C-alpha cells in the first residue's frame, strides 16, 4: 500500500529500477513449458466446498459452480491493491477469459471463478457488476463466475480449507480492516481434486493453459505416445565408473518420471527368452485382480506400524527394486537391518528367499519384513489385517481379487506374492546373443568377458548358465569370507570412505563406528540350520540386472562391480569355511574390464516396463 513500485504505467519501468522484477504473470514466460501430456500433476487434495452467493444473491454450493471439466479458482477483494496479489490474479484470469473466448474446446472445458474475501463490501450486487463486465450481449451463461459469501462465518471455513490464510489488519480509525493474504490460484479437475496451486512466481496464463492441456492429454488413453523423453522410463542410475572423477550420474529426476501402466498378466505369462517358467504355486494362480491388489499393497505406506513405510521404500523400483544408497537396509524409524535389501527383479524364479534362504515361498516370505521390528514393525499379523479392514479401498480390491471382501493373512500374502512374480526383467542383450544366436547383440569385449566368466574366473560354477535358460544362480549357499570378516572384525583400522566420484577419504574405523549402530551379529545360513558348518554361508544371488542392483554382497559392502571382481580375484577372505571354489584368479586389468562389460550385458530391457508400471501405481498414504 505504501509502496511506490506500482506507480502509474511506470510500474513496469520502476520494477527493474528497484531491482525487483514484475510478477511473471504480467509478462511473457521466459522458459519453455513441458509438452502437454508429458508430466504428472498429482492431486493435492480435494477442493473444499462451502456455501456461497451468486451475483443474483442466490445461495449455492461452491462445488456446483465447478460445472466444467476444469476450474480455475482465485480469491479477490475490491480494495486489494498489491500488484502481486488480487490485481495479478484478476489480470491472469482476464487473459484466460480471452483465450476461452477464442477457443471453443476451452470454452467447453474451462471455468473461471473469482471468490471474494470481503462479504461486507463485495455484496451480490457488487459482484454482479463485476460480472456484467464480462457478459456478452445475449449470452446467458458466463465462463467467469464472481461469487461472494453471506458473511464472515460462511467465508471462514472456505478460506481455511483452501489454506488461504487471511489476516485482518484493523486500520487506525477502526473502520475497515485491511486484508493481508498470500496469492494463491487453484486449478481444480472435474473430480474436484486440486491439481495445481499457483503463487505469484508461477501464476501465468500459459502455465495454467499448459496444465489444463496436460490434464486433458493425460486423461487420454494414448498418453504413452505423448512421452517424448523415453529415458524417463528407463531404470535408474548405475555405479559403473563411480571411482573416477569422470563419473556422470544416470539417475533421473523422480519428479519427472512418467508412470506407464502395463498389463502385468500378459507380461508375466509371455515367454521370456533365457528364462525358465515361473514358479507359480497351484494354490495361488496369477490373476489380474490379485496382481493389481498386490501392487497396491506394495506401495502402501500404511502397511507399517506408523503408516510411513511401504515395501517399495527398500525395494525401490527405479533403483533396481533394491536400495542403491544403502549397504544394509534401514527400516522403521531408522532402525538398522543387518543385510542388504535384495532386488525383487525376477524374484518369481527364486526357490529360496532371504540371504539365508529361510523361506521357500514368496507367500511366506512377505510376512518377514512386515513383522520385523526393524523393517515395517507391525506388532502382529492381526494388526495388519485389521488396518486393511478399515481402509474402504481394500474392501473393493479384495472382493475383486477373491470374490468376497474378507481380508485374511493368506489373501494379503497371495496378492503381494502375485505382484512380485510379475516383476520379470528379461530381454537382455546376453539372452539375445546366447539363446537367440544374435551375434551382434554383444560386443567383442563382452564376449571375451563371457569366456572369462565361464572359464578362467569360474564364476559360472555358482552363477549357473543353463542350456535353455540361465538364472545365474545355483540356489545354494556359499562362504566367501565376507561374513566371517565382519563377525571376526578382521577389518583394517582405516576405512576408505568415498564421498564423491573419484574422491575417497581414509577414515579411522573408530570414527566410523561412532556414527553407526553396532551391527547385529550375522552368522548367515547357520541361523536357519544351526549347523556350525553353515556359519557365514549366504545364498548365491542371481546376476541378472546386476548393473542396477548395487551395492553388492549380502551386506552391501562392495559398491561397484569392479570391487566385486577384485574381491574374488583376491580369493575372497580366508577363513576355515571358505568355499573351495574361491581362490585367487590372477585376472589382468583388461580381463576384469571384460568381465564388467559382460555383467552389464545382463540388464534386461524389460526393467523399464516394470519400473514405469510401478510409477503408475497409487501410493497409499494415510491421507
Amino acid at each position, binding site marked *: *500500500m*505504501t*509502496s*511506490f*513500485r*506500482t*506507480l*502509474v*504505467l511506470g*510500474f513496469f519501468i520502476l520494477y527493474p529500477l528497484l531491482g525487483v522484477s514484475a510478477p511473471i504473470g504480467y509478462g511473457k514466460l521466459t522458459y519453455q513449458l513441458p509438452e502437454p501430456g508429458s508430466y504428472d500433476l498429482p492431486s493435492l487434495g480435494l477442493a473444499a466446498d462451502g456455501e456461497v452467493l451468486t451475483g443474483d444473491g442466490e445461495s449455492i454450493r461452491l462445488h456446483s459452480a465447478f460445472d466444467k471439466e476444469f476450474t480455475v479458482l482465485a480469491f*479477490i477483494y*475490491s*480494495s*486489494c*491493491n498489491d*500488484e502481486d496479489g*488480487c*490485481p*495479478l*490474479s*484478476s*489480470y491472469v484470469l*482476464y487473459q484466460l477469459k480471452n483465450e476461452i473466448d477464442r477457443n471453443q474446446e476451452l470454452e467447453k472445458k474451462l471455468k473461471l471463478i*473469482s471468490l471474494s474475501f*470481503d462479504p*461486507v*463490501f463485495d*455484496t451480490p*450486487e*457488487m459482484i454482479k*457488476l*463485476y460480472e*456484467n*463486465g464480462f457478459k456478452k*450481449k445475449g449470452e446467458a451463461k458466463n465462463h467467469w463466475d464472481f461469487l461472494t459469501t453471506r458473511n464472515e462465518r460462511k467465508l471462514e471455513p472456505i478460506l481455511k480449507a483452501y489454506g488461504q490464510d487471511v489476516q485482518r489488519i484493523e*486500520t*487506525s*480509525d*477502526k*473502520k*475497515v480492516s*485491511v486484508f493481508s493474504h498470500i496469492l494463491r490460484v487453484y486449478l481444480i479437475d472435474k473430480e474436484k481434486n486440486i491439481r495445481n496451486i499457483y503463487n505469484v512466481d508461477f501464476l501465468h496464463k500459459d502455465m495454467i493453459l499448459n496444465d489444463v492441456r496436460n490434464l486433458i492429454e493425460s486423461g487420454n488413453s494414448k498418453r504413452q505416445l505423448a512421452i517424448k523423453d523415453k529415458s524417463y522410463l528407463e531404470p535408474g542410475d548405475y555405479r559403473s565408473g563411480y571411482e573416477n572423477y569422470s563419473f556422470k550420474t544416470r539417475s533421473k529426476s523422480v519428479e519427472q518420471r512418467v508412470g506407464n501402466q502395463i498389463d502385468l498378466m500378459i507380461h508375466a505369462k509371455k515367454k521370456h527368452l533365457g528364462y525358465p517358467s515361473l514358479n507359480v504355486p497351484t494354490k495361488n494362480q496369477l490373476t489380474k485382480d490379485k496382481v493389481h491388489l498386490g501392487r497396491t499393497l506394495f506401495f502402501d505406506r500404511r502397511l507399517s506400524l506408523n503408516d510411513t513405510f511401504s515395501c517399495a521404500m527398500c525395494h525401490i523400483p527405479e533403483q533396481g527394486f533394491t536400495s542403491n544408497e544403502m549397504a544394509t537396509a534401514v527400516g522403521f524409524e531408522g532402525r538398522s537391518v543387518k543385510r542388504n535389501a535384495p532386488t525383487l527383479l525376477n524374484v518369481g524364479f527364486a526357490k529360496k528367499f532371504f540371504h539365508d534362504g529361510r523361506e521357500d515361498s514368496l507367500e511366506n516370505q512377505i510376512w518377514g519384513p512386515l513383522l520385523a521390528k526393524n523393517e515395517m514393525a507391525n506388532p502382529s499379523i492381526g494388526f495388519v489385517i485389521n488396518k486393511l479392514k478399515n481402509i474402504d479401498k481394500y474392501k473393493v480390491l479384495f472382493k475383486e481379487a477373491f470374490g468376497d471382501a474378507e481380508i485374511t493373512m493368506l489373501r494379503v500374502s497371495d496378492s503381494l506374492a502375485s505382484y512380485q512374480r510379475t516383476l520379470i526383467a528379461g530381454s537382455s542383450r546376453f539372452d539375445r546373443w546366447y539363446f537367440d544366436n544374435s551375434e551382434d547383440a554383444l560386443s567383442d569385449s563382452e564376449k571375451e568377458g563371457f569366456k572369462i566368466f565361464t572359464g578362467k574366473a569360474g564364476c559360472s560354477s555358482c552363477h549357473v548358465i543353463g542350456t535353455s535358460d540361465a538364472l545365474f544362480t545355483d540356489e545354494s549357499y556359499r562362504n566367501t569370507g565376507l561374513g566371517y570378516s565382519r563377525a571376526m572384525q578382521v577389518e583394517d583400522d582405516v576405512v576408505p570412505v568415498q564421498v564423491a566420484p573419484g574422491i575417497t577419504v581414509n577414515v579411522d574405523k573408530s570414527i566410523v563406528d561412532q556414527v553407526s549402530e553396532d551391527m547385529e551379529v550375522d552368522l548367515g545360513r547357520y541361523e536357519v540350520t544351526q549347523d556350525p558348518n553353515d556359519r557365514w554361508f549366504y545364498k548365491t544371488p542371481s546376476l541378472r540386472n546386476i548393473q542396477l542392483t548395487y551395492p553388492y554382497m549380502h551386506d552391501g559392502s562392495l559398491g561397484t562391480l569392479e570391487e566385486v571382481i577384485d574381491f574374488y580375484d583376491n580369493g575372497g577372505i580366508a577363513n576355515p569355511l571358505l568355499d573351495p571354489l574361491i581362490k585367487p584368479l590372477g585376472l589382468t586389468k583388461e580381463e576384469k574390464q571384460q568381465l564388467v562389460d559382460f555383467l552389464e550385458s545382463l540388464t534386461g530391457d524389460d526393467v523399464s516396463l516394470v519400473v514405469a508400471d510401478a510409477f503408475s501405481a497409487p501410493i497409499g498414504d494415510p491421507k
Partner: protein
Amino acid sequence: MLARTNHFKLALFLVAVLIPFDILSKPLGGNFQLTDSNKQDFSLDSLKGNVVLMFFGYTTCPDICPTELSKLSIILNSLGSKSKHVKGLFVSLDPNRDRPEKLKEYVKFFHREIIALTGKESEVEKVANMYGVSYSKNIRPDGNYFLDHSANLYVLDQEGKISAVAPYGFPISHVIQLIEQMN
C-alpha cells in the same frame, strides 16, 4: 437497572450493526452532488447522455490512484472522437486535504477531461456509501495518513446507472471494450 443498561447496550449494538446494512441494502449508485475542482457545484445528473468512468481515491495516494488515473487517461485518449461522450470522474475520499485547487493541479497532470470532485467529509462519505466503496484512514506514527480504499472502476451508463464495475487490475482493453459495447 441492570436490565435497562443491557437494553440500552442492545439497542446501541443493533444501531451499530444495522446502519451499515441499511446503507448497503439499498441499490448501489444514484445521483449525488459534490464540488468540482473549479469550486462549482456538481451533480452527476449533469453528465446524463455520457458514459461515465468513476474512480474513488485521493491525491496523496502513492500507488493505485495514479495508476488508475493514468489508465483512465489512456482510455480517454484511445477512444478518440468517442471520448466526447465519455467522461472521467475522480472522487476524493480525502476532502480535508484534497481541496479544489489541489485537485485541479493533480488531475490536470493526467488528463484535461477528468473531472475531480470533493466536498464536505459527510458528503463524500455519503457518496462512497452509495457506491459501496470501502475506505479507512491508516494513520502513521508521524501523523500522516494513508487511505485504504477499494479501487474499483465504476462504469456508468448514459442514464447514470452503474453498468459494470471493473475490479482493480483489469487491463485497459477490458474497459474500452465495455464502453464500446455501450455505445
